[in-house]
């Protein structure tokens, strides 16, 4: 026998990490890959906004206002002459920034509360869960709108507000996972070796929670982008003249813009739709890739 272990090529001997396996599974979903490509395109467009736009997004040009798409303005101009193409791109920067930051904030709060609640159980668990119930009772828009009227508009305010009221879903998810993992052997082993609680939670239990958490992150980003759009639509989100997809949509509240100036609100509306759609595809693909027991 000529072949032996020593002669097998190195590549086929190397263990494939779970992350790589997950990526290979992800790659097999055409919709998820499409979502990734689409989302990547949107992010790239937003990142390169200052380079691909032809006019500064906030520059007024009152002589050219309310113009339909033309050679000089790809997507036309709005009521005060600002270029829509430029505003859509820069608005993407703002909306995506708000989306990511708020989602990250919400997830951080949710992970900490959920992990503590699930791990310690008892009174701590009960208190945190009742607190979560109270927060969940209010529809996000309602409570954010109320608080927004005190604290005023602004990007930071919007990010913090959305982050502060979007964590209950994550908290419950993490709590559920931690509860079931708490009784596993490896946790008992770590504890008997004298590991501190925080180490047990974050170094041992968390890696198993990452999978559903990643999928949850994608949906959190969607939620945050939509919330920002909704708040700006009602006039309490990102203040003009800074563009965001939401406050560009606000112009559609008046019937004359809705009817006679579709180029003013269709681009941001379509961008929001494509963004949400692509992130949903990615999230679905992630769910399947990270949990192969899913049958669909």
């Amino acid at each position: 026998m000529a072949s032996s272990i020593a002669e097998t090529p190195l590549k086929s001997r190397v263990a494939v990490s779970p992350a790589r396996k997950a990526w290979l599974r992800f790659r097999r979903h055409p919709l998820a890959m499409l979502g990734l490509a689409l989302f990547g395109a949107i992010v790239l467009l937003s990142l390169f906004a200052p380079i691909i736009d032809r006019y500064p997004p906030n520059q007024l040009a009152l002589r050219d206002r309310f113009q339909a798409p033309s050679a000089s303005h790809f997507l036309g101009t709005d009521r005060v002459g600002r270029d829509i193409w430029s505003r859509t791109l820069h608005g993407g920067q703002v909306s995506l920034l708000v989306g990511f930051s708020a989602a990250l904030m919400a997830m951080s709060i949710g992970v900490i509360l959920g992990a503590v609640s699930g791990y310690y159980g008892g009174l701590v668990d009960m208190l945190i869960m009742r607190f979560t119930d109270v927060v969940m009772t209010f529809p996000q828009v309602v409570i954010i709108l109320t608080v927004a009227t005190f604290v005023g508009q602004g990007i930071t305010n919007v990010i913090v507000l959305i982050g502060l009221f979007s964590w209950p879903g994550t908290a419950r998810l993490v709590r559920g996972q931690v509860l079931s993992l708490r009784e596993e052997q490896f946790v008992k082993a770590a504890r008997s070796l004298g590991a501190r609680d925080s180490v047990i939670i974050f170094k041992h239990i968390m890696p198993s929670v990452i999978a559903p958490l990643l999928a949850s992150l994608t949906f959190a980003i969607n939620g945050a982008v939509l919330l920002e759009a909704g708040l700006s639509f009602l006039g309490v989100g990102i203040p003009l003249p800074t563009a965001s997809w939401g406050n560009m949509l606000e112009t559609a509240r008046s019937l004359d813009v809705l009817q006679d100036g579709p180029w003013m609100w269709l681009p941001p509306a379509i961008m929001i739709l494509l963004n949400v759609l692509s992130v949903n595809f990615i999230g679905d693909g992630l769910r399947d890739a990270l949990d192969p027991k899913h049958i669909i």
Partner: protein
Amino acid sequence: MQYFIRRLLINIPVLFAVTIVIYGLINLAPGDPIDFFVNEEVGISREDLSFLEEQFGLNEPVYIRYAKWIRNALRGDLGFRFKNGDDVAEVLVQRLQHTLILMGSALAIAIIGGVLLGVFVGLRQYSFWDFTLTGLSFIGISMPAFIAGIFGLYIFSVQLGWFPSGGMRTVGVPPNPFDLLYHLVLPAGTLAILQLATFMRYTRFSVLEVKQADYIRTAQAKGIKARLVTWRHTVRNAILPVVTIIGLSLPTLVAGALFTETIYSWPGMGSLFVDAVLVRDYPMVMGIMLVVALVVLLANLLTDFAYGMVDPRIRFE
């Protein structure tokens, strides 16, 4: 029975905490509730300020004001609007009815359409219908109320002219159910899209999961007719998880209704809330938040009860 009582009792401290949050939010936040009456340019004299404070009882400590608010609320008196002195409770009840019509229709469309389609598609995995409807459902879950609302308004009202662009009734026409339906189609339809897609996906997933269960194989092995297996076992068990998410979707429906009512000028609680909150009409805002919280808690309770009835195992946990 014990299960039902337990669910009810858990919700009472939550309700209590919710009322504290509502009151605290408005009254402990920076800025005086009285700011509504203060004209920034003109300013206000010391005497007028103290007169207003006395009238609204704002010179008493917060917890006393809270207690009075709760006591009045239990009697059905939610105070008067800052804006025009209208009775908060009166306006609320009227607008609540309108919102319930909107939300109720949207929920009905979403549940009936979603569950039926979900079961239909779940039983036919990998078919043409499965791929088409699942694909469409992706678009559905990406269109929350306010996006769907704007598109709906643009396509069906502005461009095609099939439905009116707003309001609940046509001016000059005596109120009749057909006119109401005519005005209801777009708002309820666009509000329902997201929920319908969500319910459909969930039901489909549930059906697919149940189909693989051992007890289904047992039933088939026993020789029970396929149709009976489908309906009595598969579908019945698949519907269980759907009950939970129907309850969970209620806060979303309330929030969605907020945008839908603004877009379609539907005179409901959502548009009332937006108006009140933007002008800082605090008695109104508190009243609405209270009602909304009550509705959500009630819905959660009903969902828990329904779940307990549909799945007897839950009752004995």
